């Protein structure tokens, strides 16, 4: 296949006929450029969406309660619903196989003071699994564990920014702070990929909070991390089941949207997935349309080019060129031009995308637009095939022209 002389012939034919080569290459380069930009921009959109969900684990289901909005079983509207430990246990026992992580949450506002510094922060009293559901990153020390819960230990894990607020550059781990009159030991410091507020939160064992704030077994919220083996539809069904079962258990009307609400990330994911799917289908349609237009463009130009070269082929034939050699030469030239031009379009497109970078993130929700190497390889293969087709058909026809006819052509 690698025939240096053939390549030399082709390079000469390309370089001595620059206008012709550039013309053939242009359509392809342009098509690929458009394709690259299109794909890159959609990837950018997709990145923005992925980012939006990066804060929490993708497989979360949140259960929250409020007041009833419908009478049910003789109970009145406006009844305040309260989740308790037994509801948490109910979820834990009933759906064990479908749950990867499980935690309760109690919300409180607290005032932390240390030496002469103090400030107000949000407190979340949770189970150890909360770390995984919130994707909390422990920078120093450790997170809450089962023993802390059992012992109702007066320990807290504080966000990175609380540490900065109160301790500045000084070490905070192991220090005791005063929180609403009670002394707590800092056992960990964390950071979080979400916004800054997420890093101004205090975590404490759910049991400690229940003991100290009212001495009851109330919880504000239950967070479930469903088993990642569930597909989106199964996960949505699971969320619906939790909702139905808990409503029944708490005597809530099945259609009461206010008393108990289940927010299932699977539903959001499915929506986003569908949206992105549609977007990608659109891009593939538009993209392949562009590519096909490029292929048709180069085919047309190849037909023109070959017509222009008919006489040259006649001369070559008179000198002993076999049809296969003419076809091979044209096809190879066509493949070379399409590949080079396509690559040029691709590189230019990628370069433009890199220039755009994150500058469109604010206004157009396009973050880090780029094309994957899979796309690049796919496009390159398409180009080579395009060059093959674009070159082969007209070349075959040209090679079939009798030399005497070809020689007479101008």
């Amino acid at each position, binding site marked *: 296949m690698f025939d*240096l*002389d053939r390549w*030399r*012939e082709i390079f*000469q*034919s390309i370089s*001595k*006929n620059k206008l012709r080569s550039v013309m053939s290459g242009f359509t392809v380069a342009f098509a690929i450029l458009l394709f690259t930009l299109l794909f890159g921009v959609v990837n950018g959109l997709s990145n923005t969406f992925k980012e939006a969900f990066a804060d929490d684990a993708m497989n979360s289901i949140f259960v929250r309660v409020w007041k009833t909005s419908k009478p049910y079983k003789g109970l009145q509207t406006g009844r305040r619903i309260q989740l308790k430990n037994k509801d948490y246990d109910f979820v834990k026992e009933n759906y064990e196989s479908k749950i990867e992580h499980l935690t309760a949450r109690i919300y409180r506002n607290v005032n932390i003071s240390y030496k002469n510094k103090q400030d107000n922060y949000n407190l979340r009293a949770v189970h150890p699994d909360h770390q995984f559901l919130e994707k909390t990153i422990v920078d120093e020390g450790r997170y809450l564990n089962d023993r802390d819960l059992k012992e109702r230990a007066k320990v807290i894990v504080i966000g990175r920014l609380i540490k900065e607020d109160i301790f500045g550059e000084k070490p905070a781990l192991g220090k005791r702070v005063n929180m609403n009159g009670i002394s707590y030991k800092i056992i960990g410091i964390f950071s979080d990929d979400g916004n800054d507020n997420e890093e101004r939160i205090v975590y404490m064992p759910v049991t400690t909070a229940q003991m100290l704030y009212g001495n009851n077994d109330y919880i504000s919220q239950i967070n479930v991390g469903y088993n990642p083996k569930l597909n989106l539809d199964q996960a949505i069904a699971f969320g619906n089941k939790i909702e139905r079962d808990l409503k029944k258990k708490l005597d809530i009307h099945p259609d009461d949207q206010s008393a108990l609400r289940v927010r299932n990330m699977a539903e959001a994911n499915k929506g986003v997935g569908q949206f992105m799917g549609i977007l990608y289908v659109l891009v593939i349609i538009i993209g392949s349309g562009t590519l096909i237009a490029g292929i048709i463009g180069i085919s047309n130009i190849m037909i023109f080019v070959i017509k222009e070269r008919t*006489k*040259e082929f*006649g*001369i*070559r*034939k*008179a*000198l*002993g*060129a*076999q*049809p*296969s*050699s003419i076809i091979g030469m044209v096809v190879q030239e066509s493949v070379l031009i399409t590949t080079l031009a396509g690559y040029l379009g691709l590189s230019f497109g990628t370069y433009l995308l890199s220039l755009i970078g994150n500058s469109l993130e604010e206004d157009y929700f396009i973050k880090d637009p780029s094309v994957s190497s899979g796309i690049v390889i796919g496009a390159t293969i398409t180009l080579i095939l395009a060059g093959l087709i674009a070159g082969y058909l007209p070349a075959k026809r040209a*090679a*079939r022209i*009798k*030399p*005497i006819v070809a*020689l007479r052509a101008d």
Partner: protein
Amino acid sequence: MIEIKNLHKSYPIGKDSLHVLKGIDLHIREGEFVSIMGSSGSGKSTLLNIVGLLDEHDEGDYYLNGQLIKNLNEKKAAILRNKFLGFVFQSFNLISYKTALENVALPLYYKGVSRRERLKTAMEYLDKVGLKDWANHLPSELSGGQKQRVAIARALVTKPKVVLADEPTGALDSTTTDSVMDLLKDINDEGMTVFVITHEEEVAAQTKRVVRLKDGVIISDELTKKATQSA
């Protein structure tokens, strides 16, 4: 070398067909220097193209170097042309983007000769036609006579059995015509068969045998003074 018996050729023109060659019998032996004369449209080029395997005949037999030419596919024809035949055209037919040297070397490329060897041999033949100094010029930088000499060098470079020239001097003035004819004569003197089309009596007179065509038939076939002189 070339043996033709009762050769016919027609060209379809719309529904009709134009009968151009109407039963040609011709035998050219190795080493002959033959010219074909005849008015325009008498079928000279048609005959030469058939002999050169650039076109196919309809009827009759054609033997090239003892081989019956029949139902040749393009590939076989290309191989035979490359091996046995060298062409010189009235309009030179050089490839415009190749230098004189590259044009001369091209038939050797199709013969599968290595690049080094090709360029070396091509240079020898350019030297032979007196154009060594013009090797790296493009055809557009050469005069008509020079172009034709490049074309002759190209026709000779594969050492063919027969050189076919269709009005090689048709586009040249009388001085360059003479130099081109001298070149063909030299080639013939070296033993190569040369077959020239012309409609100039002076050109024909420099060959050794003149075949006259009229309306697709041979009306005369005689040796020239040159032939009797050299014999």
